[in-house]
């Protein structure tokens, strides 16, 4: 149902599903957990530091479930931000030539069409927004649209997935207990160096030794989290570095722009990481 405009494909929200198998290396039993949760209609909370594959995992699971059920399950992703209001999720009246017209929000569409609704970085959303997912995430599985005076019962295939990064040490950006206790949680952490090398190789298309070096760099930098580095180098930045290397940028430079400059502003850490890079990459 995709319409094609010049270079990009446009989908309707509820039509977008993952057709091609995304690359994903399972770390432990998260696939089974997700699948069971999906079967049992239990919403899922993905937690872990940035760039550890939360979003990729959701994409993968959306594909996995679609292909298992032989029916496409749309994946509806909403990136939450601090101004995200309830009506951004549920829908709103718009004015058109004939008066006003109701437009469903992404959440409503997911509920109606039976897809996986993925709220990324849920803590970023305003607290009042977070609360509207409550009736959807317990036994009721309903969405109340007060402006319409309607209650929508979720389709069977509907599943709520949220992600959050507990690493941000912001006193006020914590998930409320009443919210978090509605989910089963799958914890994400950085992959082992071997797994990471495999991911890097696949994602960036680099050779084995570069992938090994990059994953080793990741490992070394993560050793610094206790020394003032607020967030460790994610797999994502390593992939970026890999991609730049693949495209012909000198490895040291690629790591500098993709890794060092991105993760810290601290002069000391900065130089230390440079030294590590120059030790690993010729």
């Amino acid at each position: 149902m995709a319409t094609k405009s010049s270079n990009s494909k446009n989908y309707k929200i509820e039509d977008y599903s993952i057709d091609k198998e995304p690359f994903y290396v399972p770390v432990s039993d998260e696939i089974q957990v997700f699948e069971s949760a999906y079967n049992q209609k239990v919403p899922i909370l993905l937690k872990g530091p940035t760039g550890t594959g939360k979003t990729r995992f959701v994409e993968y699971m959306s594909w996995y479930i679609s292909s298992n059920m032989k029916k496409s399950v749309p994946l509806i992703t909403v990136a939450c931000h601090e101004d995200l209001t309830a009506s951004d999720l549920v829908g709103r009246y718009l004015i058109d030539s004939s008066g006003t017209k109701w437009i469903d929000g992404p959440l409503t569409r997911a509920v109606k069409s039976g897809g996986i609704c993925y709220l990324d970085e849920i803590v970023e959303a305003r607290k009042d927004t977070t609360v509207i997912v409550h009736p959807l995430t317990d036994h009721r599985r309903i969405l109340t649209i007060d402006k319409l005076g309607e209650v929508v019962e979720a389709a069977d295939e509907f599943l709520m997935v949220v992600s959050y990064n507990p690493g941000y040490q912001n006193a006020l950006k914590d998930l409320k207990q009443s919210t978090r206790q509605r989910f089963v949680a799958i914890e994400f952490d950085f992959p082992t160096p071997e797994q990471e090398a495999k991911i890097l190789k696949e994602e960036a298309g680099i050779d084995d030794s570069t992938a090994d070096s990059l994953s080793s760099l990741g490992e070394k930098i993560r050793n610094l989290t206790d020394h003032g580095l607020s967030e460790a180098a994610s797999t994502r930045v390593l992939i970026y570095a890999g991609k730049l290397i693949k495209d012909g940028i000198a490895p040291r430079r690629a790591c500098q722009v993709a890794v060092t400059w991105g993760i810290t502003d601290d002069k000391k850490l900065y130089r230390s990481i440079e030294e590590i890079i120059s030790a690993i990459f010729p």
Partner: protein
Amino acid sequence: MKEIKNNLKKYNWIDTQELNETLNTLFEGLNESSLNEWGSIIYSSVENTDINSSQQQYVLSLIKESPNVFRSLPQTQFIEWAKQSNRIASENSDLGKIYVDSSTDILKNLRPRHLLDWGNLGLSLFKSSKNSSLLAKKFYKLSPEINIASSYDDLEKLVDTCKRISTRNVDYSSKTIDWVYKISQFSPNDLKMWNEIINKVSKILIKDFEKIFQLLAENADLINQRKEFMKSLIIILDSNPQDFFVVIKKSIEIFSDISLDYSEEYENMLISLTANKADQVKGYSLNFQTLRRGLSKEKFNIWFNNGISIINSGNNAEGYFSLDSPESKALFNELTFSVDLDIEKDILKLYCCALSGQELGVQSSNIMVDKEIGWFNSNLATTEGSTIYLPESIKKFPERDKNFSWLKVIATHQVGHVEFGTFKLKLDSASSKFKDLRFSLVKKLEENSLNNTTDITDMTKYFKLFENSKLAQDIFSVFEAFRVDEKVLNKYRGISNSYKDVKENALQSRPEVEKLPGRELLIELIIRYSLKPQKLKAPKKLESQLKELLNLLVILGEQDSGIEDTAEATLRAYKILMGVKNESQDDFEEYDFEEDIFEKFEDSYNDLLEFYSYSNENLSDSDINNSTENNNEEELDNYSSPQEVEHWGEFKPELSQLLLEMSLGEAEFSDEGDLSDLSAEQIEEMLKDSVDDNLDENADNAVESEITQNLEEALNEMQTEKIEDDQSKFADRFDHFDEDGKALEVVEDNQFLYDEWDFRDETYKKNWCLVNEKKIGEGDLQYYEETLEKYADIVADIKKQFELMNPETYRKIKRLEEGEEQDLDLTVEAMVDLRAGISPSEKLYWRRNKVERSISVAFLLDMSASTAEAIDDTDSSRDEWSAPDNPEKYMEWLRKRRSQGFRRSYKRIVDLEKEGLILLLDALENLGDTYGIFGFSGYGRENVEYFTIKDLDENFSPLIPKRIDRISPLHATRMGPAVRHCTQKLLKTEEKSKFIFLISDGRPQDRGYSREGVEKEYAVNDTKKALLEAKNQGITTFCLTVDKEGHDYMKSMMEDLSYEVLDDIASLPLRIPQLYRNLTST
């Protein structure tokens, strides 16, 4: 009197009334004749028939000023003065008038006897050149003011200067007076010095006066108040006037360059150099900036002081400070190129931690050597598994980068030992490349062992397998160093280039092979090969042995080799080497082993077993039978260890493993007994082998026993420390004791009781702590003002940011996509747009901002004694020069600075805490949050001090800053009760969000704030509990610490609570407001 009146009557331009007054005054004090004399002076100037108006003005002034002058002068001098007035007026009546007008003023500060001289000065100035009437007028007019800040001598000097300049250019002369006057107004304290300087300039450098004067006049602000510097300028003027202009020009350039704040350094050095050898100052000034930029402050100091000491020792220092002398150049280069551990330490520490994934420290090798526990060479790197010791300064190469690479390589090698498990040798874990010999050998050794001593580490036990353990250690060291090098090179390919350079470098300094006896020769060849695979020159008869040895080496270089493989390879190599007589060799030939050593290694397991069982028997026999030992001894003694490989550092596997295991707390409970069983003899024995070489040099038994003692002490110390640290780990070994004491009781009004959490018993100790709430005294407002002034720009910024935060509480926000209701106007507009065919805006809603800011915050300040710790504050030097311009304030400033100088000239942590609060205070007042500031300290559970600086319900008043001034380091840190008390206070407030903002400098500690006095965990756990209690009551807590070691305990103390460890203490004042903003904004 009447006569005078009558005589003057005819001049109608004279004001009779004024004349009468004057005459009345003079009549009272002057005798008849003097009065007449005065009269005749007046006549003489009015008698002139064609009197012009300026002459009239003069006379009027004279009449008017006479009584005033008269009051300050004796009779005779008064008349003299009047006469002189006439004289001057006869030269130029305007000048006379100004002289007369200024006389009263100048007499306020000038001694009467100088009055006439002063008049003469002006006159001489007047006469000095053709057009100098203006100049002289200016002089008379301004000198009263100038004189306030100087003396008559100075005026004389000034005139002297001016006269000299006048001969060249009268304009400049008059400018000079203007300028001196300006100085006297704005910087009176410097006037004397300036006067002196320009006087000297006019004397000595009259040719260049214009340009020098211009330079000085334009930049006087930079030089003002640098008294010593000005003194130096005078010295230069006296001794090397030709340098003066260059020096002053360059100095001004340096002083005015704010981006590079070298002024103070430059100034101090210049002063000291001038005092020592003024002719060097020019070179110094000219080159200062270039040189200083190339070096750190410390290094520059070294270079400079060296120059001074050359001067002091009477040697020729020609060209030193301009970097022309070879001596100076050499030192300077060395300083530029050398890499100092001190500077790179932090970076290297992070680097080492990152590579190893362990918490490693980085220290100077000196520290290890100073401990005197078996390490000797402070120029080598070493490690004992938990700290990397590196040489203090690297100056091997004439390039900085190379030196740093070298440092990095040797650090990487040492980290390699840690990362690749050198010290993790276990006798009972299998090797991957060899058939394990150790298992059966160790078993045998234990069986044979006659005296039942326990060996502390596996490493020690392992080396017991060898008869000649010195040889064994040498082989082991080489093999292990090679294994680590190979691993590093494989894993860290980026460093391989510099690594190769280092190895190449090492190769060049190896001793000649031909002269070495058999065993040493073979070991030397292995070392060479391990540094670089190459053709080797070896005696023919040792070819097969060498081949076998290299084969072992190559196996160790493979990727999956471990420390156990090194151990096994050593066993094999040892056998080979023992089979070679340690005698000189001939018949050398060059071999290229590269091709054939990769043959499969054939392990002659049984031969080895036999060899070792023989040598072991021998060993155990030797205890009983001394005669058999003689043979061996001869052989043992003539073997000496190979020359060290510099980048491998000092390698002490046995000691290191012991120390490492001790520090990990593994050794103490291993096998039977703990370390106290370790006898002095055992340590000695262990030391003997590892420190043999070095002891030979000292050849002194006393040294050996001293080292033994030191090591023993160090070990014991470590053990006690570990017991403290690892209480939790081995908790079960200790019974629970209850601390002595009972619940406390409240005696006074302002006391409060709190429970304390005992994490071991998992109970609260009831009413355990007594908090005394006190009001803090009041100090000075000055501190507050100074801080605000110091951070003026930032204060404004913070205020602005806080204002942005301030929500506009009840204002309607329009044009929203979502809101309470649709806005009628906007909807109409939208409909109009629709009708007109324009797409309407979607923002049709309005909303009241419901988020009402309702916050109360309690700042809890650590006032423990440790906050008195000085911090390095390079900033402080700057405000020394920010002296106020206003003379009154200047004196005040000076006085204060003096008194401060006695107290302290450095900054303490507590000062930064205070500064942070002050910055916040101002902004907070605007914001309208409820806030309180409290400090805590105390000593013991019965005396927890809780100071109120500003209570939550107290309004801001000047008292608050005064109280802040009094915050100072006191005693200990019992955080738990302080947090609890603070929680109670906060709970009484009505605000919706409540915060505790804890600022501390270290872990909580206090007398009895632990179990059995050693368990630090106790304090941490109690604090954690207190914070959790607060959290459960709906209070958000945040802890900011400046303790660099804070990461470890903060993590366990704060768990999922927010905290921050501030690495850069100096940023504390700025960080507090930032954090506050982040914390409380939604």
